[in-house]
């Protein structure tokens, strides 16, 4: 029976090629526009560490109080980074399973070969627990140990790409490299690791950046050698001291902090600890305002930092609107097409076809339009994703890509949408009175 309906649908579609082509074009464009927008949305809204994101938390302490909030839009949010004093205190008290304070650095590396120009790299100063906490994959070697943190050791973990550039991709563990004029021993080389969004430091990157993370070195070491902060520094008042040391003594916030807490109990215990810390500091006279801390898990944190650009959301909404309009349009055209064949339906019904058979026949016809439109949509989506780099900033455009899931989704959306559009026209077709049709002929 299915073969017969397919044959009928094909004949019917061939009978009015103009209308058929129009429907296919409309479905194709509607699906392609929404799928292209979706591919961008999917790329920026994905969970960068889905197996663990609910166990990673970002603590915020309200060290500035209500008066420090210069910008009114920010509704009573505490600062989204930490000052040096509190970050160090919390690292020392070590209440989470893993935790790391971190800040962004941008040192330069002088190649041993004097004929080559120095290169500038981006990276972070972190604690040793950063690596197990974020399940960072290693190609060679591994993270430095907690003792290296304590001793402010000159060790470094480098990216695969930097390893390629400096050591030709060989196992460089134990070799030395010159960072900002000082020698560091390579402790490990990362396997390809470039999470998007760069969830451990969205404050400085906004989540998406074309910059590469090439070096990670011990936080204590970076502070020791005075490696300056390359990320944002926010101050509610001008630091009293000058230089990097002045920054460390100030209430300016410039340090990101992340902690792993396994289970609800651990999370609420940590929140209690955080609040207790605030109360102790308040009792010591540092704060004069009420408690206003936050402990968000990673998804909530990314949301509160508005990591998904609003342009992306608006584009997706508008593209979905376009798809809806295309659906309505297809429904109208299918209605016209089906009702034109009232006499044919009348004959089939008179010869004993049940309503169900009419339903099947026309839904298959609608589905066929959808499938063809979907194939066209696939091609247009592919073109669309290619063109995205032309209209979007590089750091976001480079994330959008076509994969099997997107392809399958495109086809499924096209078929489902056109069958949905065909639902009412089919219903109307199945209601055709056989007697009436036979009589007028």
């Amino acid at each position: 029976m299915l073969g017969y309906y397919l044959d009928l649908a094909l004949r019917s579609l061939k009978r009015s090629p103009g209308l058929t082509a129009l429907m296919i074009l409309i479905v194709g464009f509607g699906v392609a526009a929404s799928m292209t927008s979706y591919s961008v949305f999917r790329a920026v809204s994905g969970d960068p560490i889905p197996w663990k994101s609910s166990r990673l938390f970002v603590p915020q302490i309200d060290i500035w109080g209500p008066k420090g909030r210069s910008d009114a839009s920010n509704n009573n949010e505490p600062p989204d980074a930490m000052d040096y004093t509190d970050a160090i205190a919390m690292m020392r008290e070590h209440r989470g399973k893993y935790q790391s304070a971190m800040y962004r650095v941008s040192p330069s590396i002088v190649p041993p070969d004097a004929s080559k120009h120095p290169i500038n790299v981006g990276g972070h100063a972190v604690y040793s627990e950063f690596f197990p906490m974020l399940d960072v994959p290693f190609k060679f070697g591994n993270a430095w140990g907690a003792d290296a943190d304590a001793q402010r050791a000159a060790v470094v973990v480098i990216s695969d790409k930097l390893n390629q550039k400096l050591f030709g991709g060989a196992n460089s563990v134990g070799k030395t490299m010159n960072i900002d004029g000082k020698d560091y021993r390579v402790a490990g080389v990362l396997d390809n690791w470039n999470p998007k969004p760069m969830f451990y430091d969205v404050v400085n990157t906004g989540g998406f950046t074309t910059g590469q993370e090439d070096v990670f070195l011990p936080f204590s070491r970076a502070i020791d050698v005075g490696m300056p902060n390359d990320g944002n520094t926010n101050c509610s008042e001008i630091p009293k001291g000058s230089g990097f040391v002045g920054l460390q003594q100030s209430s300016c916030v410039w340090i990101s902090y992340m902690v792993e807490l396994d289970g609800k109990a651990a999370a609420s215990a940590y929140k209690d600890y955080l609040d207790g810390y605030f109360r102790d500091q308040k009792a010591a006279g540092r704060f004069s305002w009420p408690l206003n801390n936050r402990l968000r898990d990673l998804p909530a944190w990314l949301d509160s930092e508005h990591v998904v650009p609003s342009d992306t959301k608006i584009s997706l909404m508008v593209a979905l609107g376009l798809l809806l309009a295309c659906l309505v349009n297809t429904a109208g055209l299918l209605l016209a097409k089906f009702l034109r064949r009232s006499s044919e339906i009348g004959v089939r019904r008179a010869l004993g076809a049940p309503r169900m058979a009419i339903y099947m026949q026309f839904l298959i016809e609608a589905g066929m339009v959808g499938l063809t439109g979907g194939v066209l949509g696939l091609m247009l989506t592919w073109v669309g994703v290619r063109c995205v780099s032309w209209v979007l900033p590089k750091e976001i455009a480079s994330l959008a890509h076509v994969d099997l899931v997107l392809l399958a989704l495109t086809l499924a959306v096209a078929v489902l949408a056109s069958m949905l559009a065909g639902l009412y026209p089919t219903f109307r077709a199945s209601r055709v009175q056989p007697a009436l049709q036979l009589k007028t002929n």
Partner: protein
Amino acid sequence: MQIRPILATLRYHKAGTVLIAMQIALTLAIVCNAMFIIHQRLVRMDKPSGVEESNLVVVQNEWAGKPAAGQIAALMAADLDTLRKMPGVANVYATNTYPLSSSGIVNGIGHSPDKRNYVSQTAIYFSDENTLATLGLKLVEGRNFTANEISDLGDNDRIAPAVIIITRELAHRLYPDGSALGKTAYISDKPSIIIGIVDRLQIPWVDSSMAQFADCSTLLPFRQLLNTTHYVVNARPERLADVTARVRVTLYAAHRLRVIRPKDGVQTFAQVRATAYKSDRGMAILMGVISAVLLATTAAGIVGLASFWVGQRRKQIGVRRALGATRQDILGYFLTENLLIGMAGVVLGGLLAVGLNLWLMKQFEMERIAPGYVMTGVAMLLVLGQCAVFVPAWRASHVPPVEATRSV
């Protein structure tokens, strides 16, 4: 043209009528808002920076090997000298940032040292006596910095300038009566004297969250001795391409231990502008494409459905023609029918457009849509609808009266 028989006929095509009206409504709602977004972005991209952009090249220089502040001062002075001697270079200065660069420092500026009680936020540009000439800024009041007013500033050193130059907009916010020149303002905990006012200088950021102080910039008389410096170079007319091509090699030849990124270390101001507004331009293009596809779809849908109706009613048309209706009557009938559906659609669509705008305002802090956009959209869709229906209607008007006598 009698409307009543048309309405009576439409009752027999309820579904088709409703679908076309809905299609028009959706199209209107989306296209109005898309046009509004496009217009907003174009306005933003059109904003003058206050800088004479056509002859500017920006070089981002990073010193390798962490030289101390004292060394940087010497290196920077040598670089400026090298650049100034380059053939084709008219002027140059070193700074922390420049308009449209998307990075920099924001401070509050006001009438008291209390940082929490400022009049406006302002972007900070570290400048020297060559800044005004290099950027081509128009000084409307007061004077430029002199060479001996420029002092060195290390990393995280306290910023407390004795004199500042501000933009006209900022001057107006600080002293609405226009008397800012020679008065003081607090950008740090010490007062600074306003010695000059420039006509216009945009801040480094173009996103809407900073739009509120987009023209409030302050020039501070400092040489910032950081690892990363930007050299802004003003090339002589017609020499821009030449200077851009040679500047990297010239600097490396003067001193090797530096990093000028291969990809974006040297940029003309046109490139800077394109990068800064890339997402705005992209959004405008995207909205334009979506609107075009939507309008084309709607027009095609109207053509398709109207053609079907004409085909379905050939016999009735034949009867009317046989009974004496002229071709104009038939043409007018279909045009009017379409106009009625279109009007129902745009009324619904107008409401939808405002609703969508309200939702966007709530979700994304968009501005309220001007009524003009909805009006334009309404007119556009009605005209589009009439154009789309014209071909099927014209075909209908050419149905011969003899059709009335044929069966089927």
